[in-house]
């Protein structure tokens, strides 16, 4: 295997490399090899109390809502991606989001939920559902800037923050699943922030519109955060909202 210093790549080669299917293929081989539905198949489940199980099921159901939104949004955005390599990157994201939904549904089944899809509908967080509807409106309108902002910046940063915090306290199987999912989110979040950052540099007027969207969606995101934190009995400070989610929004120059 030839050694390659990534920092010596030209900017063009760097972007071509990281947005390619080939990169995705070799990256996921690293952390999904040997897993079965996202976790080490040699692990066995621990005993949950009734309330622990109830909270975990509700949380997983809401992860599924977020992943359904992400699957629908990322697949819908391919047809209006601004460049072929962006379309190829989004295709890798589509399969990542599909995988996330699948592993969470599989986990719900392992926890004894016979009809996970019905359970997801019953336990959906209202703020998250409103957020999903708004995201899919932007996708239907083929509004690239708004869709990439809401999906790959806001939603992905929210998921990344929550999944990492939850993985630290979860049972070993759920933790393994969440750790793998968060590794995918790193790519999605980075793609969104960089794509949007470049766009904002070229068209600063877009910022005003996206600022309005931030103001509209922030309450939904923060309310979702606090509900999940309550279910998981995690302090919102521990979730690192200020250092992760809000820092991303701030880096792009949006008011928080």
């Amino acid at each position, binding site marked *: 295997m030839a050694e390659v210093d990534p920092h010596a790549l030209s900017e063009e080669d760097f972007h071509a490399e990281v947005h*390619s*299917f*080939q990169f995705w*293929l070799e990256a*996921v*081989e690293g952390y*999904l*090899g040997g897993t*079965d*539905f996202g976790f080490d198949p040699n692990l066995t489940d621990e005993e949950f109390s009734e309330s622990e199980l109830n909270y975990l099921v509700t949380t997983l159901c809401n992860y599924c809502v977020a992943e359904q939104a992400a*699957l*629908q949004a990322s*697949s*819908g955005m*391919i*047809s209006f991606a601004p460049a*072929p390599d962006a*379309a*190829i990157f*989004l*295709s*890798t994201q*589509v*399969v990542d*989001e*599909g*995988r996330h*939904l*699948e592993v969470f*549904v*599989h986990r719900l089944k392992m926890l004894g939920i016979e009809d996970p*899809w019905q359970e997801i509908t019953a336990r959906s967080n209202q703020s998250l559902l409103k957020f999903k509807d708004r995201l899919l409106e932007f996708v239907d309108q083929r509004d690239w800037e708004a869709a990439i902002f809401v999906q790959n910046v806001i939603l992905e940063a929210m998921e990344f923050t929550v999944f990492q915090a939850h993985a630290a306290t979860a049972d070993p199987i759920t933790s393994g699943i969440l750790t793998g999912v968060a590794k995918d989110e790193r790519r999605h979040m980075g793609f969104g922030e960089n794509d949007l950052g470049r766009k904002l540099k070229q068209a600063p007027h877009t910022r005003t519109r996206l600022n309005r969207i931030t103001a509209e969606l922030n309450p939904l995101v923060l309310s979702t955060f606090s509900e999940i934190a309550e279910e998981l009995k995690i302090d919102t400070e521990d979730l690192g909202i200020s250092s992760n989610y809000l820092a991303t929004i701030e880096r792009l120059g949006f008011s928080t």
Partner: protein
Amino acid sequence: MADFLSGYSIQSWLESCPQGYLEDTDYGHGAGEKEPEEMLGNDTFREDAIRTTVQLVVGERAALAASSGLVNAAPDDSSKMFLATQTLDEARHVEIFTQRLLDLGVRKDDLDSTISRYANPNLVKFAEVLLEKVDKKDFIAGVVGQNIVLEGMAFSVFEMMHATNDGTNPKFAHTLSGTIADERRHVGFGENRIGSLIKEHPEKKAEIQKMQQDMTYHMLATFADSFKANSDVVEEAHSQSSPDAKAAVYHGVDLNKADASEMEAVLSDTVLGEFKTRLGRIGLEYLSPAA
């Protein structure tokens, strides 16, 4: 149904593709494999390879747009999962065939203009008929157009190209083997998933058959244009091939000896035969473009 559809899971896809036949490949072929020097050094052969590869990129771009658009139109989550994997398969095909254009000497800056110059207008129309259904979120018509008509065509075209290249261009033959393996899943999904939906929606039959008829018309026109354009290349290739060369047999025809019109005939007959069989199995009647 749920157990049957679990075969369409991303877990199955991961085990069969990234951890299966794509493991250790580089843009779909073995690391270090190259296009043959005899082809790169001959402008006529190289241009023909570029023209052919452009059609593959155009077809795969259409397949990518269609499969990603169909994720949102799918009525059940298993179909969404499968279409998510198909979206990535199609994106991979776009990438590996685009990479082949670069390997054939097309400069990155010239990619778009090369694709525009060589893209067959009939193939573009073929894609437009399909994407119109996808834009309307018509799942049944979209899947028939994508997974039976487009994929059925691609499957046969790739198999024929694989037979041609197997003995002379291992790099491209390996690239094609992986895409053929992907297409197998796609055509399988098309038949298995849509068969039951057609039964539930018999009122859709006429509209879908009309779409198939229009797509078939543009497909046959694409074949006619393509084989006409490369008839001289075929002759030159035959004149240069060794008399001891191993036969490249595709459906009983030795492609190392057949002329362009024989090649067109065997490909068209094969694709149309497959269409009739597959459409018949899901309860649709094949409509000839001549009808």
